[in-house]
């Protein structure tokens, strides 16, 4: 695997690799997003307890899962950047951070919109909600640290360190509903047991989950390409590329 991965550490190769992937990711992301969300929001049966309000699950759960998935990807990139000092991994950290932050914000906002009619409160300082809010602040912290130093190298290093250390929050978010009494209910699909959701509601949810993952990959590819061009703008291959257009 490493033999296959290694050439991708070279900015030029990665730029073209992402360029090749982008259109496929875009098409599949938009297709699954439309399919999953229209099916989930419009055509699934109502829930026996929550009626139509539960439908927001088709946005809330995929964005919440991918807010953690994006963080894990960012932390792995940051770890690679710190230990092996691969600059493309470093750029990937900053490429993923805002995408993950937006996913986290979507998860928090849809959660609030769901909590008000069902629980009776917009916000409760519950372990799950609080740890997810900390995740949002971790994303902000990574982005802010990146820009906080006049020396870009130092900023990148410190931001990567925060990204790696912040990954401790991921198991806390996941297990918060098991370790403590929380208002937030337990896991529906992210567990080893059978998902406790009816198949008619599960399929659109899984499609939406795939859609959010593809969307994240696509946006990462686009942002990474921009980052590569920006950082390599004085290299001959970029000049040649830009001159060609």
């Amino acid at each position, binding site marked *: 695997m490493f033999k296959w991965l290694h050439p991708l550490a070279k900015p030029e190769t990665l730029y073209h690799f992402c360029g090749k992937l982008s259109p496929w990711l875009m098409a599949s992301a938009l297709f699954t997003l439309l399919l999953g969300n229209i099916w989930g929001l419009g055509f699934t*049966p*109502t*829930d*026996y*307890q*929550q*009626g139509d309000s*539960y439908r927001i*699950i088709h946005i809330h759960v995929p964005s919440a899962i991918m807010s953690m998935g994006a963080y894990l990807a960012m932390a792995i990139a940051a*770890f690679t950047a*710190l*230990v*092996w*000092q691969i600059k493309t991994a470093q750029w990937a950290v900053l490429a993923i951070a805002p995408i993950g932050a937006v996913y986290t914000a979507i998860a928090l906002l849809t959660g609030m919109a769901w909590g008000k*009619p*069902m*629980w*009776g*409160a917009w916000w*409760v*300082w*519950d*372990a799950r909600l609080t740890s997810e809010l900390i995740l949002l602040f971790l994303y902000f912290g990574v982005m802010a640290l990146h820009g906080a130093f006049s020396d870009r190298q130092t900023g990148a290093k410190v931001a990567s*360190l925060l990204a*790696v*250390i912040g*990954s*401790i929050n991921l198991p*806390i978010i996941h297990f918060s509903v098991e*370790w*403590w*009494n*929380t*208002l937030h*209910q*337990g*896991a*529906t699909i992210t567990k080893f047991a059978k998902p*406790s*959701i*009816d198949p*008619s*509601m599960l399929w659109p949810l899984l499609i939406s989950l795939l859609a959010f993952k593809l969307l994240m990959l696509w946006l990462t590819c686009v942002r990474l390409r921009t980052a590569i061009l920006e950082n390599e703008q004085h290299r001959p291959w970029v000049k040649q590329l830009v001159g060609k257009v």
Partner: protein
Amino acid sequence: MQSRRQKRLFSILLVIGLIAGAIGAMLFALSQNINLFYTPGQLVQGLGEGKIKPDVGQRLRLGGMVVPGSVKRDATSLKVSFDLTDDSGEIATVEFEGILPDLFREGQGIVAQGSLKSATVLAATEVLAKHDEEYMPPEVAEAMKGIRHVPPSQLKQSERSSANYGG
């Protein structure tokens, strides 16, 4: 060459290990405080190894299942009282004045916030409904669990007592 990379690897792993350990110890020490609510069992028997019981007058949250048949409404005001229970079988009473959330039903999990009036009575200022992680269409719920969930507002008085429990 090899050693410098290894040094970076180990120092980062060490930093992560130490911080994870520190946060783990912190969460362990705080574990009783992170719980959002007391259960009736914890209220009566005490919390954790020290069997610490909350004082009367203390502000806290209490969470549990609404005991079927225990909901008493005042005929002329919004005052309502109901009992909560959990796996331990202990019972605590909640007194509340206000509008209950839509999901409030007998047998439903709820979390009430307020101050403790006596050892097992909570004067609540806020009642939140807790729902479980199961989602299914009404027909499936009826077939699997024998539950017929109808919002209380749509029930006739005579059906009210039986609707949640298999009709």
